[in-house]
């Protein structure tokens, strides 16, 4: 075990060049390093880490409670970690998107995660606010919460050793290589020598919501989905997935398929209609909506692969497709000009 403290805080870096994002990461790490009760680590963006990356191995080696600060919705981060065999109980954080009272979040009725070790994972979305203090206060609160229930501090399980052994066999990262992640300043400055990770694109399944209905496997014609030994749906060939295409997410009746980096909140793992916070101008710039969007997104990818477009002839959801909700209000004087509105 490399990490030794009660709680490990991991910052998952942004994959964008946005200086404001990098600045927040640096401020957070600088402040967190002053807290002796924490282990602090920085890893590249979780979504871009493949199973063989030393960052993934590092995260797998952390046995205790975990706070993950990352540029995506908590739900996306949690199931991304779960998929990478970094499992734990999805713990509640007080740092959540403000919910619109009118929006009902549908009840999760999925099959759930499997073989969860007795430890908590808190995922915090760095996109919520640019003020580091908010995150620091929440991490302090989480620390107090965990210390209050100190008897439940998890005992490191054997799987950690197993992973290490397999690493040795595969000639994969040695402990020294993983320790680099606990020198967060060098990771942030790009001087740690960790291997680069390239941008990736694939769906992440939220098993709290997934009911194993198999509509995604029917709809996707690129062989991304498969089933495991227990006939549970899984993302089997993630690199078959078409960059930018979120079509399967749109056909999922439970909103259980997440593309963490998609710009539409509902696809990226938001629960409820937080998209209403910002105006979506995609229709203006050329998008279709709903099931039509899924069909045309799929056709684009089929044609690009040299295959024939199939339109609505293959893999249509069994349920009635939700009819597009177009809110057509009466035009009134309010909208004489954009200047009159606080857009």
């Amino acid at each position: 075990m490399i990490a030794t403290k009660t709680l490990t805080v991991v910052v998952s870096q942004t994959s964008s060049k946005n200086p404001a994002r990098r600045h927040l990461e640096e401020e957070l790490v600088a402040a967190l390093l002053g807290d002796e009760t924490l282990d602090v680590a920085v890893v590249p963006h979780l979504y871009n880490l493949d199973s063989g990356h030393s960052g993934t191995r590092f995260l797998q080696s952390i046995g205790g409670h975990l706070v993950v600060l990352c540029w995506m919705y908590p739900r996306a981060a949690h199931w991304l970690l779960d998929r990478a065999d970094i499992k734990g109980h999805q713990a509640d954080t007080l740092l959540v998107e403000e919910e619109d009272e009118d929006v009902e979040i549908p009840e999760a009725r999925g099959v759930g995660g499997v073989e969860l070790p007795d430890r908590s994972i808190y995922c915090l979305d760095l996109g919520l606010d640019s003020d580091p203090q908010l995150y620091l206060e929440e991490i302090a609160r989480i620390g107090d919460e965990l210390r209050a229930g100190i008897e439940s501090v998890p005992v490191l399980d054997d799987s950690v050793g197993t992973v290490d052994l397999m690493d040795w066999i595969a000639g994969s990262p040695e402990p020294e290589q993983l320790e680099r992640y606990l020198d967060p300043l060098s990771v942030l400055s790009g001087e740690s020598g960790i291997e680069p990770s390239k941008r990736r694109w694939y769906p992440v399944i939220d098993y709290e919501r997934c009911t194993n209905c198999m509509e995604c496997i029917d709809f996707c014609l690129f062989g991304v989905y498969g089933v495991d030994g227990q006939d549970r749906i899984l993302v089997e060939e993630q690199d078959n997935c078409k960059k930018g295409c979120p079509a399967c997410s749109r056909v999922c009746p439970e909103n259980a398929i997440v593309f963490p980096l998609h710009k539409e909140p509902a696809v990226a793992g938001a629960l409820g209609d937080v998209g209403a916070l910002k105006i979506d101008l995609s229709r203006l710039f050329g998008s279709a909506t709903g099931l039509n969007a899924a069909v045309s997104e799929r056709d684009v990818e089929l044609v690009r692969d040299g295959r024939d477009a199939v339109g609505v002839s293959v893999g249509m959801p069994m349920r009635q497709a939700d009819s597009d909700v177009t809110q057509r209000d009466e035009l009134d004087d309010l909208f004489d000009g954009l200047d009159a509105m606080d857009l």
Partner: protein
Amino acid sequence: MTDNLVFMMGEYEALVPGDRFYAWNHLWLQEDGDALKVGLTSYAVRLLQDVFFLDWTIDPNTDVSARQEIGEIESSKAVSSLYAPEDGHVLNFNDAPLDDPSAVNTSGYDQGWLYRFRTEAELLSPGDYLDVLNDGWEDTQRMIKGQLN
């Protein structure tokens, strides 16, 4: 050179320069060597307001089809995917707005261009584009208002 045109968005004057072509999805295209520089029109930028995030989901030198999603843009008030205007080829992206997306606001018709593009498709003249704006304005207002309510 054709005269510059103006489209009135309420009180706001959206400029449609006469020295370039346009696409239906609010992009301008201007000849640049053996390709076309592409950028967002003043109309689009006005609706977006202050742009602070721009990203591309395709690599340079990629064939694209019309309406294919190729990137995304986010501003203080709005978010949108970006779509290829026509079938064609995206050659390279302009680093300036990637480094500082506010270039789209400050110099949208010049330094804030987005990418270089080749296409065989027929493009819109400034006058054609003005017709597109006139025809779509009511609908656009409704769409925005619908989302605000």
